[in-house]
C-alpha cells in the first residue's frame, strides 16, 4: 500500500493512532473509539493488515487486532504519531 493511501485516510490514521496507544482491541471497540461504523472499520483494518501494519488474532468468533511492532514501517509510523502527539 503506498504511503499516501495510508495517511490520506482519516479513518486509517485514527485506527493507527488508537492501536499505537492501546496495542490491541476488537473491531467493535476500534470502530467505537474511531467514530466509524463496523463495516468501515473492518475494511480499514483489512487494508492495514495487508500492509503489514496491524495483525489479526482469532479467538473463536472474536478477532483482536494488534499493532504490528515487528514491522519496521509500523514502528516508524508509531514513532511519527507519538512525536506528533507530544509536540502539538
Amino acid at each position, binding site marked *: 500500500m503506498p504511503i499516501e493511501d495510508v495517511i490520506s485516510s482519516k479513518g486509517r490514521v485514527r485506527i493507527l493512532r488508537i492501536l499505537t496507544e*492501546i*496495542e*490491541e*482491541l*476488537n473491531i*467493535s*471497540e476500534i470502530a467505537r473509539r474511531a467514530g466509524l461504523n463496523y463495516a468501515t472499520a473492518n475494511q480499514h483494518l483489512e487494508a492495514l493488515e495487508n500492509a503489514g501494519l496491524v495483525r489479526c488474532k482469532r*479467538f*473463536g*468468533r*472474536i478477532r*483482536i487486532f494488534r499493532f504490528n511492532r515487528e514491522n519496521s514501517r509500523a514502528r516508524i509510523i508509531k514513532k511519527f504519531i507519538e512525536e506528533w502527539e507530544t509536540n502539538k
Partner: protein
Amino acid sequence: MYHHFSVFKNESKLDLNYIPTRLPHRKFQRTLLNQFFRFTVENPGEMTQRVLITGNVGTGKTVLSQHFGLDITKEAEKKEINLNYIHVNCRECRGSLFMILQRALLNFHPHFPKRGYSAEEILQILIQILDEQNAYLILAIDELETLIQIGGSDTLYKLTRVQEARLKAPQRLSLICILREPRYLNKLDSSTRSTLQRNIIRLDEYSTSQLQDILKDRVDLAFKHETVSTSTLHFIAELASSENGDARYGIELLWRAGKYADASELSEVSPECVRKAVASVYPLVQKDVVFSLSSHEKLFLLSLARCFKHSKAAYLSMGEAEQAYAVVCEEYNEKKRGHTQLWKYIKELSALGIIKTELSSFGQRGKTTYISLPRVPALDLEQELAKILSTENRRSNTHAD
C-alpha cells in the same frame, strides 16, 4: 500545618488486602499447599491439580492462598516458567463463571471485549491463550459458595474437566477452591465432588494465643514502637477469639483502635480505644462485605438505614423500602431498579445476614415482605455507606475526567 503524633508507622500493613510475608500458625498448611503444586515448577504441563481450602471466616484461607501464589510464581520466574496465579472472588463476580473467567482472561489481554461470547467460549479462549504463551495458570476461586449456589454442578464440572479433552496437550489450568463450609459441596453432583474433594486443606479457628501472635506481627509492622502494650494486644486477641477466632476481625479492631488513639491524640492505644473500636466494628456485617455489594445494593441498603434511623418501628414493608430507595436514587442521580431486582437485592442482603426478612402474617389483605435490620446500628451503617458511595462517586468522576 499542625501535625500531631500518630501511633501508626505504616497503617497499610493492616489493610485487608495486605499479604504478610509471614503466616504464623499456618506453616503446615502452607507446606502442604506447596507439596500439592510442586509439579508446577518441577514438571509443568505434566499434570494439573485441584485443591480445596476450607475454614471459617478469618482463619486465613485467602491469605494462605495468596501467599502461596506470590511465592510459587516467584519460584517459577526464576526457572523461566510462565506460571500465573490469579485470585478471583466469586461474590465480587456475582457467582458468574463468565465473570470469573473473564477476570482471568483480562489478566492476559486487558482490552479483550467484555461481551459477545459465552462462558464456555471464554474457557476455550483462555486455554488457547495459555497454549500460545506457553503459560500455566493456578486459578484461585475464593468464596466458592456463591458459584455453587448460582451455577450449581455444571459450572464447576466444566472448570475441573476442561483438561480431559486435551489428553496429549500440556495440562495448563489448576484450581484452588476456597470455601467456608464444606457442606456446600453436597449440592454438587458426585463426579464434580469427587474431583474437588481429593485434596482438602482444613483451617481451624485460631486460638487466643495464636491470634495474639498474628496481631503481634501486624503491630510490629504497622505501629510505632511501644504504642500497643501486651495487655491491649491480649485484649484484642480475646475479642477476636470470641468471634470464632476471626483474625480479620482482630486486625480490623487493631486498626480502628489505632485510629481512635490518633483521634484522641494519645501516644498509646488504650483498652478504651479498643472498646470504642468494638462498638464501631460489626463482626457480623464487616466492612468488606458492605464494600463488595453492587452500587444499587448499597443505595438500597442506604435507604433502609435511613428509614430505620428515623423510625421507631422495627420493621419496614417492601413498599416503604421501595419508596425510600427511589428517593436515594434521585439524590445520587441514579436510575432506580425495578421491583424484581430489588427483591433479588433483599434476598442477597438477607443471605449475607445484613437484613432479615419476614412475610406478613395471615389474616392481612395481600402479602408483603417485612424487612428488619437486626444487628447493625442504622446510623453507623448509613455513615459507612455514605462514605463508601462518596468515594466511589469521586473515583468514577476522576475516571470520567
